[in-house]
Every structure is written in C-alpha cells, then in structure tokens.
C-alpha cells in the first residue's frame, strides 16, 4: 500500500501534462467558437477528409514506412554485431550510436544541411572528383535520410537489448539439434528478438510519422508532412480546431498501426509488444 504513494508524483504529472492536453485537443477538435460562443461541431473532422490532407497523410505514412524499413535493414545487423560477445569494439560502437542522441535534435538535423546542400561538403567532393553536382536536398531522399539518421538508434537499441539477453545455451541447443547458422537465426534468434523488433519499429515509425522539423529543414519546406500541416494550423493559420482534428487523426493512425504491429508480433512470437 505504502509503495503506491510513490506513484503520486507521476500520476499528477501525467494528468496535468498528458490527460489535460489530450482532453483539450478533443475539445478543440469538436467545438467552434468563431461566433464567440462555444458550440459543438463536426466541421473540423469533415475538413480533414479533404483530398489535400489525405494526400499528405498518405505521403507521411509512405515516407515514415520507408524510413522504418531502412532503419530496420540497417539496424538489425548493427544490433547483432553489438550483441556479439566476441566483438571487441563493442563499447566504442555503442557510444558512436548513442552519441548523436546527446546532441540537440535540431542541431543534428541542421548539420545535415551543410553536408547535403548544393555547396555542401558532399557536393564539393563530388565536383572535385568530376561527378558533378547532385541534387541531394529538397527532395524525398533527404527527408527519409533525415528520418533514418535521427531514429536509427531507436531501432538498434531495443533490438540489441533483446539480442544480448538471448541465452547462449538456446543457440547451442539449436545447433545441437542440427540447425546450421542460417537456421539458428531464422528459427530461433529472429523469432526470439521479435519483441525488440516491435518496439524498434514502434519507436522509429511513431516519431517519423509525426515529425515536422526534419521535413521542413531538409526539404526546405517543399515536402509537407502531416506534422507540418498540424504545426501550421497552430502557428500560422491559427485554426486550432482543424489542427486538433488532424492531431486526433494522427493519434488514431498511430494507434491503429500499433495494434496491427503488435497483433502481427503476437501471432509470430507469442510475446508481448508495447501496447
């Protein structure tokens, strides 16, 4: 009983900073006060189904999906190398992976500008070796790159932490039962690492879907994601109702994809995910 007391600070924190804002978003999404009086309305909800917004949502989903897949393809082998007990440079590599996270998110993303822009480091190098200037920024590539760069550690670390915990005996048991290295991986290591994969996917897909900084900086405002639209509603247009409605939609999208991911994960491993 007494231990429950220690959760009070968190409960207070949660209600003030999570529950109240959530309720406010719902409140704004379903009310209209343009006439000076607060009235219930479904106008904002209807508005988000305009083709323009649907297209942006589609693009956001697509790009964050690509970024998640790339993170997975890059991250899983990295996590495996890290989890290998015999890998001597383990702590160095772990620091290299975590190090960017010590830096400010904006700063990290800005630093890509100086690499990617037309007069940037990469292009100067390409020009100097005779390939010539390549358009690296202001396109989908740059945005996905930014997402992958920023969220890759969130894919690697959960997978790594699950992989290091796999009992070495279990791997030996699989070999003992006749499995070669490929089968040990396919039938034992990968299925056992699914909880890590699921949280990795969750932790990269969610922020990638809602980001607005990466797309604004690396596309120079050319590529609009759902995050950008929401931000605009609050900061530029001042249409809090539509902004809140779009935020709600984003939450629903994330919620649905998490259910989907967890359900798939449950079927394949019988182990719990994040939800």
């Amino acid at each position, binding site marked *: 009983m007494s231990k429950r007391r220690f959760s009070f600070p968190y409960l207070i924190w949660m209600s003030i900073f999570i529950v109240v804002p959530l309720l406010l978003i719902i409140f704004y999404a379903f009310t209209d006060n343009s006439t000076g009086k607060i009235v219930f309305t479904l106008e904002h909800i209807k508005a988000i189904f305009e083709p323009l917004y649907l297209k942006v949502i589609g693009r956001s989903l697509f790009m964050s999906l690509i970024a998640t897949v790339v993170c997975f393809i890059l991250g899983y082998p990295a996590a495996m190398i890290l989890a290998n007990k015999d890998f001597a440079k383990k702590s160095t590599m772990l620091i290299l992976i975590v190090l960017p996270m010590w830096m400010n998110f904006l700063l990290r993303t800005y630093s890509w500008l100086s690499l990617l822009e037309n007069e940037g480091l990469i292009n100067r190098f390409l020009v100097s070796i005779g390939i010539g200037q390549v358009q690296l920024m202001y396109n989908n590539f740059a945005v996905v790159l930014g997402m992958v760069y920023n969220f890759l550690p969130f894919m690697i670390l959960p997978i790594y932490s699950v992989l290091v915990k796999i009992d070495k005996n279990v791997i030996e048991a699989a070999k003992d039962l006749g499995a070669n290295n490929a089968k040990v991986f396919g039938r034992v290591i990968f299925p*056992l690492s699914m909880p890590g994969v699921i949280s990795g996917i969750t932790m990269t897909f969610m922020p990638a879907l809602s980001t607005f900084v990466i797309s604004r900086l690396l596309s120079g405002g050319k590529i609009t994601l759902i995050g950008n639209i929401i931000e605009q509603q609050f900061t530029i247009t001042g249409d809090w109702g539509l902004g809140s409605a779009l935020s709600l939609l984003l939450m629903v999208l994330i919620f649905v994809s998490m259910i989907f991911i967890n359900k798939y994960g449950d079927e394949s491993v019988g182990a719990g995910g994040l939800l």
Partner: protein
Amino acid sequence: MGKKIIELKNIFKKYGDFTAIDGISLYINEGEFLTLLGPSGCGKTTTLRIIGGFEQPDSGDILFDGIRINDVPAHKRMLNTVFQKYALFTHLTVGQNIAFGPTIKKINPEQIQKEVKNYLKIVNLEGYEDRDISTLSGGQQQRVAIARALINKPKVLLLDEPLGALDLKLRKDMQDELKTMHTDVGITFIYVTHDQEEALTLSDTIVVMNNGRIQQIGTPVDIYNEPNNAFVAYFIGESNIIHSTMVKDKLVRIDGVEFECVDTGFGQESPVDVVVRPEDVVLVPSDKAKLKGKVTLVTFKGVHYEIWIEGPSFEWKVHSTIPQMIGEELGVTVDPFNIHVMHQAPIDIKTAETAVNI
C-alpha cells in the same frame, strides 16, 4: 559391454592461463551410462562440451565410432545434449520444441507428429504438446528438453547437470526416470554432475575428475570401496582418511596401532593413506581392542548416529545405529577387508575437503 562409441585421446584445453583440461583420455562403451563427476571447475562440463562440439580442444583427438570428429561442427554430430538450464525455445510450444530437430531434418510432418506424441509419452507429458513452455514446472521443462534430444535418436545423449535446478524430491524422482529411460531407449548416456550420490545411483561407470585430470575411472562400487587417492575418497561418500605407515604386507599401523589388512605391495615401513568408511568402524568395549578412544560428539542422523571418537592422534568418524555416551572410552576395531590402503596422494586432504564443500 559393447564396442567403444566415443574415445578421447590426450585432450588439453586452456582458457587463457586457466587449464580446464589437463590431458584426458577415456573411452565410452556403446549403451553405457557414464558419469563425469567432480567439483565445479574440475573440467567435467568442458569435457562434455568438447564431445558435443561446442568447444575445440587445444590438442588431442575425439573419436566417434572410431572416426576423428574434431572438425565436425556441433550440428552435424550424431549426439544430442540436455542442457543444465534446459535451454528450451520459449517462442515455441512444447510440441514444437520437441519437433525442432526432425523439422530441421525435413522429415514429413505427419511422421513428426507421431514421434512427438511418442516421446511425450516416454517423458510422461502426454497431452502437453500445445502448452507454452512458460506454463511448465522445472521438472516438466527438463522432460521436454530430454524428449527434444531423444527424438533425434542420437547414438549418444549428453546431459549437463540436468537435475541441478530441481528440488531434492523431484531430483530423486527424475533420477529414477532417467535410469528407466536409459534402459528403455538403450542409447549411451554421458552425464555430468557434482553430486556423488547421483553419480553412484545412476552410473555404470564413474569418471572422477579434479583440476582437469581424471582421478579414477571405475564402477560405482569400485570407486566407493577402492578409491585411488584421498581426493576420490573424500569426494565419494564420507570417510576417515588417516596418514599411516605400512609395516609390512597385510599389516598397517593406523593411529599408532597395528591393524591387519588385505593390501600388499606397499613395501615396509612406508607412508600410506588409509581409508576407512565411517560405517565400517566397529566400536567395542575398551578392553576388547588395542586402539582406544573417547567419545567426543554424538549426533542423530536419522538412519544412524554419527559418533566422533578421539583416538591417540586421529579423530575417527563412526556411523553406528547404537548411540554412545559422550566421554565414554571405547575400543575401535576395523575388519581387515574394510581397511583400504592407498599411496599418499600428491594433493593434500585439505584441498579435497574444500573441493567437496564447493
């Protein structure tokens, strides 16, 4: 028994500066239940892992059916292992765990299902195929591990302290079951344990190991009655190990008193170690024996009393069903064939004692 199925020739293995195995040669007959017994760090598990293919020896050969298998990887060896902590696949059901080996070998699924049912029956887990591993008790998990190994019909089953994690009662039951399984399936078992009683109960042959070396190989009766050295005597059962002098053939001076014995060939007036099991010491009225001592401690142990007798230069441990009074003076006698004379071991008795207490 049958022919040699596994033979180890002069195996050495070091981990850094630590010598895990210091020259081991032994063979295992087909169908035998052989136990590697010793304290932790004696090299028994390393020996098993070398046979299983999980470790490479620094030098020496491993023969399987007469063929050198040093370079054969674990997954191609005709043997299976039951691991100490079961090492079950927690993402699979009981049935899928047992079917793992045959599935890898691409045997047809119907056949596998039949085999799985059959082996579940052998390990007394009928009807458990769809259960989750996490819902099983330790004993049940160990049975799954055994079934998962046996279904591959290995020629040799390696068991690495398989009962170590179970409580006493369950361990006794599983010992009986293992023994029955060994008789029923008729394959060779190589068993690793630090529990001397388990080794005596289960084995056809016991290999006692210490510090990476074999101390003695023999049947449980041999090892118990005729230990090679003080280490084996201390490790297997309780014993009085007394620094003594061999006066001449069949006569040994123990604790200052000459005893008749049956051993010969140790020379005259030469130092030896003598082993007398506590249950072989017979207490008589003090006027009926040459060796006299005072009772210093009497403890009730259930089946017997443990009585400590202070002799002239040695404190004797005696197991007797008759209690004695503390302070009473008694005579100590031992039948000649219960006195076991050994060459003095290079290791001192203290080392053996600490080893046992690990």
